[in-house]
């Protein structure tokens, strides 16, 4: 896509194509079957007949990351699970989005302990955060609608994750994993951007 970068931005052709692509992408999100804790129960409930996630075109939960484009991180992310989560995210084809569902995956929740990652945004770029412990299915739907709005503003001339993924994040992730494992750091770590 780089050959059209900055050349046709916002002209009629690209915006029309954008409209079609964005409509197709936002109307058929394929979430990944990926539950880590009690939030997963609410995520499952939101797909059932009572709440019916299918109304928003996101009911096809895929067991394989290769077939999914939305990762709903539902639950506590432990430091042991963090590398696995990162790998699953990397295996998803682009364009891909992440919803951080609940307090635990957003900021670590009540578990400020030795084993819990304090926010999944330290290892993967998050598009929408959902509050709640656990959030009700309605909260998840609202996050889904917000994500659809966000997808609607995407443009073909930019890669969707271009802005969100940086080298810095990868290094930050490595540091997170190291944090629990080194008792006396030989050199002070550089403060990452706020």
């Amino acid at each position, binding site marked *: 896509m780089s050959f059209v970068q900055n050349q046709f931005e916002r002209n009629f052709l690209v915006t029309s194509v954008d409209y079609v692509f964005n409509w197709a992408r936002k109307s058929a999100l394929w979430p990944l079957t990926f539950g880590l804790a009690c939030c997963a129960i609410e995520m499952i409930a939101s797909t059932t007949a009572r709440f019916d996630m299918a109304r928003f075109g996101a009911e096809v939960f895929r067991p394989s990351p290769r077939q999914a484009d939305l990762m709903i991180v539902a639950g506590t992310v432990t430091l042991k699970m963090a590398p696995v989560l990162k790998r699953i995210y990397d295996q998803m084809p682009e364009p891909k989005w992440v919803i951080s569902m609940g307090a635990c995956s957003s900021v670590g929740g009540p578990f400020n*302990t*030795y084993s819990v990652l*304090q926010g999944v945004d330290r290892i993967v770029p998050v598009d929408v955060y959902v509050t709640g412990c656990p959030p009700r299915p309605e909260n998840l739907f609202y996050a889904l609608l917000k994500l659809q709005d966000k997808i609607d503003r995407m443009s073909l001339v930019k890669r969707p994750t271009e802005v969100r993924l940086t080298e810095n994040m990868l290094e930050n992730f490595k*540091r997170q994993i190291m944090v629990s494992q080194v008792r006396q750091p030989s050199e002070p770590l550089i*403060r990452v951007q706020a």
Partner: protein
Amino acid sequence: MLSEELTQIPAISALAESYGAAILEGGLSRGEAALYVDPVRIIEICRFLKDEQGFSRLSGVTAVDWHPVEPRFEVVYLLQSLPAGQGGPPQTARLRLKCRLHGEAPEIDSVYGVWRGADWYEREVFDLFGIRFREHPNLTRILLPEGWQGHPLRRDYPKHGHKYDYGEET
């Protein structure tokens, strides 16, 4: 030195007869007996209790850390005898064995040879308390990821792990 109540329990009186010197003290709490035994003779005692007294099931191995106190660690074995076992008591009986260990390189013999079920319990105690079990077939971490430093359930392990040592988080 064991109280009257304790010696009325047949398994304990039999144990006291054969291994009286290895029983350091004993107590009865809410109808369940707990014996402090000599960690050096834990395998003999466990084998006796399993083979002669019908404690065919090891329902758990855990540990307690009394940090400033020495000996610091207490390894706890939760034993259960099932009525179907030959030579066992007529109904289910439970017995707790405790071994005190010093904080410097705590080590005890593995009871894997007596009950195979001790395998993962002992790995968990090793993982979280850092107590080594001699002769254990595969004493590696079971809950925490490989390469983790330290043992989080020790009382001198920082509550938040080591993540605040970096000045990165507030």
